């Protein structure tokens, strides 16, 4: 059997995690008919992943640097455009910011390719935070799997939690 390596060194700051949470929700938004990244706790996934090291996967050290720089640059652009941090943007503002990032069209980044690569990695991690096994910290209680219908059908209807 392979063993899940327990994370050892926390990396993301609480503020960074808040921004990741907002970005992930924009990438896989929840609604009344589907769970999204927040329902899945996808940011918890990334927090745990980045607390691991290269013994689980050789790109993890590179990703740590990428997120530290990328989130900082994105935050500066959020303030420049909207006067607010990423996690306080309205939904359409965040969508526009992310669309520009995915096109490599933002200022304040090394170049367009850097932005596209960063976006691609953030998107990939959001999907992992939603669709990987709950043991990794995301996909809380298999909520995304149940709705999607994995590993076996039928897909189950989504019941959003009612606000307290």
């Amino acid at each position, binding site marked *: 059997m392979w063993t899940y390596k327990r994370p050892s060194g926390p990396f993301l700051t609480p503020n960074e995690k808040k921004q990741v949470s907002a970005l992930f929700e924009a990438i896989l938004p929840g609604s009344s008919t589907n769970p999204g990244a927040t329902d899945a706790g996808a940011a918890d996934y990334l927090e745990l992943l980045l607390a691991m090291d290269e013994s*689980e996967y050789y790109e993890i050290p590179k990703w740590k640097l990428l997120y530290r720089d990328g989130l900082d640059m994105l935050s500066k652009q959020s303030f420049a455009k909207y006067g607010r941090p990423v996690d306080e943007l309205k939904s359409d503002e965040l969508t526009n910011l992310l669309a520009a990032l995915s096109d490599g069209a933002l200022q304040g980044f090394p170049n367009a390719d850097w932005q596209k690569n960063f976006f691609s990695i953030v998107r990939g991690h959001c*999907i992992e935070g939603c669709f990987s*096994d709950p043991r990794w910290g995301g996909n809380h209680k298999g909520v995304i799997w149940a*709705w999607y*219908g994995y590993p076996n*059908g*039928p897909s189950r209807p989504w019941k959003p939690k009612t606000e307290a």
Partner: protein
Amino acid sequence: MAEQWDAIIVGSGAGGGTAAHVLTKRGWNVLVLERGQAKTAEDFLPFDELHFWGHKSLIPHITSDPMVYIDPTGKRVLSERWWEVNAVGGSTMIWDANFPRYTDEDFAVKQYMKDVPNSDDMVDWPWTYDEFIPYFEKAEWDWCVSGDAQRSEERMRPGYQYPMPPLKPHASTDFLVSAFTSARLKPYFGARAINSEDYDSRPACPFCGFCQLFGCAVNCRSNSANTVLRSAVSTGRCEVRTSHYVTRVDFERGKNGSSGKVKGVICVTRPGGPEIFLAAPRVIVSVQTIQSARLFLLSQIPDADKLIGHFLTYHTKGEAHFTFKAKPVWDKGPAYQPKTAVGSLQLRGMYTYADKDGVRRKGGKFSVYDPYTCITPLHLIKSASLGKLRTNLWGKDLVEYLHELRSQGGVSVSFTGEAISKYENRVELDDQVKDPWGVPVARTYYRHDKWDQDLSRLALDTVSDAVTNAGGELRRYEAQGEANPGYGHVHGALRAGKDPAKSVLDENCQSHSVKGLYVLDAAFMPTAGASNPSITLIANAYRVCETM
């Protein structure tokens, strides 16, 4: 104790395992040298897509053990060898166990290439499909194949049957067979080396969904270790040594330096470790096309005609996904859907086809899947696509894609097609990058001819027409491009043939220039062919080893 082997086999995968089985049955003593470690079914538990596929825990790491690729613009790229496994069993540990045979159209391809530009290097194989048929049959029985040979679109000996019946059909099967039959695409259930029932002391496939690119935790999918190698070791005449990395073949040069006779191999058991010489009168190399060619280069096998590494081929490929608005999702549960290639549906209607002038041309075949049940979620959703121009989806688009997947029936097709052989498509030794043992890695040069790219589009468009006529809508379309940094269907580079001036290996896959040196992976293939290469390379290993 003097160690005496009749043959040393380099590599414990499809070719090496088969060689060990056939030779030990003949009473030979063999030594199998494997660079990696042994794995058991339990090593693939717990099931986890992120660990095994996402974190690439089964394949060489691109950071330490890559291949170098020179793309068509001349740019140097590091390539990840996702199809190579350094473990006992080799790549058979993660394959999809798809076993269609190369048939007449592959053995004699020249007749389909008349007047095709750049096709002068396409050659007919020096054997016929009929000569290979008995070896295909032995391979299919020893490797535990399920399917229905009597209804195959591949030409079979009348009355022949596989050891096991076909895998359970998918919920989409009747509908798809009808649609593809109307379009004259010749659907049929192809052979799989997967147990459809308990067989050979191993269980029937429970359709866990962790198939291609994963190790089989159930031991229901055949690999070299649980079939032929197991049988070889049980004779008492086969020893398998793991952690043995063969870095060159040792041979005695002939008087003029252009020929020789094999003495054995040089290997190391750890990075920086001492070289160990192991003697044998025959050395059989089977470490996957590119690595076998690399071993020939590292060994400086005499190569007066500069052929070693050349005529490397990858199959032309193509992939398309569709959704059916009028069909509910196939997987309504609670019974398990067969997550292995939709019960092995294959399409052979384009294996050859008539071009616009009515001339018969070589094409290829399709494997048919349901993306939703057959592809694990991270893999499928990272490539989310709603059409040719709507790819890498996120936001509302991604949610729309997910809604479609979970509520509508779909289908995906994967094309394997013939490819034009080119001298300049080749393997060399890289002059900069070394692997963790300090050995130069392989460097490949590859471009697909325009003919390959046109074939891919034609094949995808033909299937696309059939599917849209049946109510499908296109969701993903990926045709073959010019560049190819690497693909699992890889052959050539050590071409076999009658003429020593035009081939590296003779008709028995023995080196023309070093006696006693054989190659049994797909490197021998004179042309690419148009089916998954595995069962054909295995059948060839039977053929060569029965008379070696």
